[in-house]
């Protein structure tokens, strides 16, 4: 079985520590906030000047002046605050935001990340991706393990333009959880029913298997939404 997008988001949510300051990218990362354990207090940052951002606004409660970086109407949590762009990116580059979860097109064994220019994209755009990847200490990426054509996205070296070199610390895919260590990639967990050999076969970079590598622990009640047939 492979993890669904929600499954990947759930697995990331398990790892975000209590007290962390987190910026979530668009896509799978956005769903991470839905799976946080209520006993953790985590402050979410949005590039457009919000810390302490709450969930997406319920229909009928939207405020036209309150959107996230993905331009969705959002809410605030008690203790949240507003500020401007220079301060927002000071939080990012200055190392104050502790974690970011970003999507990836390619990740290299040394932690290089490519996620801002898709192949064949004619009009470029970078937004805040580079600032996040360069500035935040814990860059975690979520991605499908292979492209929709079955090609590995974890590579010896990226082929697409880099967002930032050597920035990724951890990779969450629909097949595995891999840490980027100074000496290379370390396979730490596999999705339920996925074999280590499957992960190795779908990764185009050397992969060391952790001595305690194990199947991901997913709550039984959640398996229906978290898993799909491989």
């Amino acid at each position, binding site marked *: 079985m492979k993890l669904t997008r929600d499954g990947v988001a759930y697995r990331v949510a398990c790892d975000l520590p209590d007290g962390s300051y987190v910026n979530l990218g668009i896509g799978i990362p956005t769903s991470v906030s839905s799976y946080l354990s209520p006993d953790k207090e985590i402050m979410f940052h949005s590039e457009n000047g919000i810390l302490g951002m709450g969930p997406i606004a319920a229909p009928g409660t939207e405020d036209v002046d309150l959107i996230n970086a993905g331009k969705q109407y959002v809410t605030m949590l008690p203790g949240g605050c507003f500020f*401007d762009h220079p301060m927002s990116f000071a939080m990012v580059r200055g190392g104050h935001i502790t974690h970011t979860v970003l999507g990836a097109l390619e990740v290299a064994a040394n932690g290089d990340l490519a996620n801002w220019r898709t192949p064949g994209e004619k009009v470029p755009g970078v937004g805040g991706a580079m600032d996040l990847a360069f500035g935040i200490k814990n860059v975690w990426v979520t991605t499908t393990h292979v492209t929709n054509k079955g090609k590995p996205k974890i590579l010896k070296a990226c082929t697409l333009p880099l967002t930032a070199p050597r920035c990724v610390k951890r990779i969450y895919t629909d097949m595995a959880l891999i840490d980027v260590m100074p000496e290379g990639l370390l396979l730490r967990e596999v999705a339920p029913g996925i074999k280590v050999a499957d992960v190795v076969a779908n990764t185009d970079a050397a992969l060391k298997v952790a001595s305690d590598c194990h199947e991901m622990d997913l709550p039984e009640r959640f398996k229906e939404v978290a898993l799909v047939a491989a």
Partner: protein
Amino acid sequence: MIDKTLKTCDEAVEPVFDGASIMFGGFGDPGLPGQLIEALRRKGVKNLSVIHNGAGAGDWALGGLIKDGSVRKVTASFPNNPGAIYFQELYLKGQIELELVPQGTLAERIRAAGSGIGGFFTPTSAGTELGKGKETRTIEGREYVFEKPLHADFAMIRAHKGDRLGNLQFRKAMRNFNIAMAMAGAVTLAEVDELVPVGGIDPEDVHAPGIFVDKVVHCPRHPKLVEIGPPK
């Protein structure tokens, strides 16, 4: 007596000239000076160099200004936002120039210009396509690229409250680029939801001090939203 108020956006944009550089505030709709931009469209200026996070959306405000063919160059971080159809069309035809700047660098370049800073070193983009050709320096073991300040002839922004001295207060996510742009524009024009008497904004709550603002126009919210649909 200082009175920076003007009755209409049309009066406010009167000094804008062909070839001017203009910063437009806002990130999505919050803080976007849509009615000043629409006044600029009515005035009909050419060869503008525009600084904004995106490249407009739809055919109102910046999207419309680009559709009109009034813009020669866009400096932006996210010009591939899905709604930026007119920018993208002109860009693919080679009829509009793009300077692509990472969002945090864009904000800091604007802040630097408004603060009298002659540039700064940032790690963002070092070793990437967007850092190519830029001066680099290794500081405390890390590579940084040099970025220049970004000035403009005009800055146009939207705030929630303003007074005749130009003091501004924002609501929620309206601040975004607007305070830095107010500082960086040689002439700064602000449209506001509410015009209040002097003292109507508590000194504790003035987000953009009036010293940075040249003209204030009271113009209630326009129902048009460019980036996202109206609340359901």
